[in-house]
């Protein structure tokens, strides 16, 4: 089977076979990062532009590391160093990048749909590294990879996602991905953080934290954004932690060998207590390790083969 997609824009546009292919490829890539010389020549001569219009440390570093381990040339543009601040439109910036003949553009952008907007205008493959509150496919894929690696499967697992679903692109992509691969996804948050119609994406809204994590195989805690404190979604971090924080007591309700995940960065003591974050079930740092392998797989699949079936 050949990977036929030009772009990786969201999970919805990938079918289960393509997702499996990405996860398998990523699993194969993982070993490269264990070698003393962590570099293979696979993408030598390919140019990858990391176009980050939003602050990001780990995701950009992860994509950058992935590109370098495959010997691609990676270039970074951030908001302050781009002409966007001079009033250039996103499409114009993308067309200018295109003129320099990159093979892949990795875009992070605060507007939902931004990656879709440029994907149709450039020949380069576009990988969405997070657009607004819409999608973060590479994060969901690395989450699926991490779960599959530990549990041997995704199908039939109970996945519980707790936190600000409404403003989380990670949650949307994880709900879509895990449900597509046959898991039962349960979500929980204050109703102020549950967006209308989210069940239709393939999840069940639990009435409380306890119901949500009861018998769970995987618990994924989302970051509560301290910067939203001035907002009106919940009164205090203290009260949030009381109602929706993951601590030792609650963890007892989950299934044996439950995996604890977090896309980072964590607020210890708010959505997750320190002891849980550092406990044996926590695979938070393995998520980061797998992130590099997964992104290597994405680069390889979109830029490593021949022409894409759907290239335009």
């Amino acid at each position: 089977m050949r990977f036929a997609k030009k772009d990786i824009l969201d999970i919805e546009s990938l079918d289960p076979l393509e997702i499996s292919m990405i996860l398998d490829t990523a699993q194969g890539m993982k070993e490269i990062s264990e070698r003393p010389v962590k570099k293979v020549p696979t993408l030598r001569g390919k140019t990858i532009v990391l176009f980050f219009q939003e602050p990001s440390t780990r995701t950009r570093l992860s994509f950058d590391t992935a590109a370098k381990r495959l010997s691609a040339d990676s270039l970074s543009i951030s908001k302050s160093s781009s002409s966007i601040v001079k009033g250039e439109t996103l499409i114009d910036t993308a067309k200018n990048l295109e003129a320099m003949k990159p093979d892949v553009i990795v875009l992070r952008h605060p507007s939902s749909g931004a990656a879709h907007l440029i994907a149709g205008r450039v020949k380069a493959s576009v990988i969405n590294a997070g657009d607004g509150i819409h999608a973060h496919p590479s994060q969901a894929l690395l989450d699926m990879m991490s779960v599959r690696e530990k549990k041997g499967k995704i199908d039939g697992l109970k996945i519980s996602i707790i936190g600000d679903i409404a403003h989380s692109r990670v949650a949307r992509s994880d709900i879509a991905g895990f449900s597509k691969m046959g898991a039962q996804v349960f979500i929980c948050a204050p109703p102020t953080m549950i967006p209308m119609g989210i069940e239709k994406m393939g999840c069940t809204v639990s009435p409380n934290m306890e119901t949500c994590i009861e018998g769970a195989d995987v618990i994924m805690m989302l970051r509560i954004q301290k910067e939203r404190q001035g907002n009106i979604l919940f009164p205090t971090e203290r009260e949030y932690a009381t109602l929706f924080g993951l601590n030792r007591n609650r963890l007892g309700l989950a299934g044996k060998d439950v995996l604890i995940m977090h896309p980072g960065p964590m607020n210890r003591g708010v959505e997750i207590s320190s002891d849980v974050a550092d406990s044996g079930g926590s695979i938070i740092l393995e998520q980061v390790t797998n992130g590099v392998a997964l992104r290597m797989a994405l680069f390889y699949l979109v830029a490593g083969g021949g022409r894409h079936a759907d290239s335009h």
Partner: protein
Amino acid sequence: MQILIKGARVLDPGSIDGQKDILIQDGLIHAIVDPGAESPGVNGPEPGLEVIDAGGMILVPGLIDIHVHLREPGQEYKETIETGLQAAARGGFTAVCSMPNTVPVNDNSQVTQFILQRARELGLSRVYPTGAITRGSKGQTLAEIYDMQQAGIVAVTDDGRPLENSNLMRRALEYCKGLDIPIFVHAEDMELVDGGSMNEGQTATFLGIKGIPNAAESIMVVRDIALSEMTGARVHFCHISTRESVEAIRKAKKRGVNVTCETAPHYFTLTDEDIKDYNANFKMNPPLRSEADRQAVIEGLVDGTIDLIASDHAPHSVVEKDVEFDRAAFGIVGLETSLPLSLKLVQDKKLTMEALVDKMAKTPARIIKASNDIKQGNPADLTLIDPDDTYVIDPSTFKSRSRNTPFAGMKVRGSAFLTVVAGKIVYQRGKE
């Protein structure tokens, strides 16, 4: 110069419905005669007489779109009074109400006079300007409404933004009642909108676009019904899009409150599920709603709760539309698609042709106190509709300077064949 429109079904709801020949002379409707009767032109061409063969077509009082953004002065890159009125003429509209959110805002008689002067020079469709309720439409102090009324405005509105201060709204209504001028209300609670850019619902959740709840509209509709009830002043609600608003207005009318309302063709044609690929040509305010809302809007048109159809023609350039969805400007052009989209309601047997003409010509005229009746001696403002013209909407053919429409590529039936304003042909299909 005389014009004879021959062989059309002449339809002026409540007064005429039948095949008639209409003779136009000196800008007026000179004669309405039965076919075959002795009239100029029946025996062949005559000098100074233009004969329009209108067999199979419907001649109606000139259509009036009471909600149009002409953008001039100030935003001529989006639209000018000239291109806007050309678009109106092509769409079959003999008159439009211009919205005051120009740059500068039409909040004083000089801007009103400029718009009217420009429209007079052009000699296309008529313009009935609306003025701002408050200075600069800032919602703080009343504009000189009487002065603008003397200059020619027919209504006041801060369209594009709500009048958030309820006490100021109350005083504006009382003041306008004294001047017998209606307020056109843009009903929107900005706090509830909270930066949203499409209808709140499943589609918005999937697309990751911040939603605008129905209540952002209906909460203000309910407030202004209460204020109209209290003051007895005339309130006209613009671009109604939700089932809750329709229901609130229905009940208010039953109680005898002095309110009217309009909706726009996109609200009875599309829903939020039609938004594809983050195409900002589907972004307008209020946003495309759910199917239940679309059905409620149609129901409101059918039972008379919704008095009229207006397009909310809102031209924007590519620069403002070919961008990230949440950063794109709100609004779509409507003058050149309003008639065919509305005729679909007749084709689908939701409305009779009479009811549609009422909602697109007669009721708008009543609201702004204009007369477009088809009767002898009246100014000849007429629209000749070809109900069978079938075509695909192609924005490249638009007269409007902007092309921001969600209807590109849609197959429709019905168009304006001829638009006559004050006895002058301002548009004739095929003779552009």
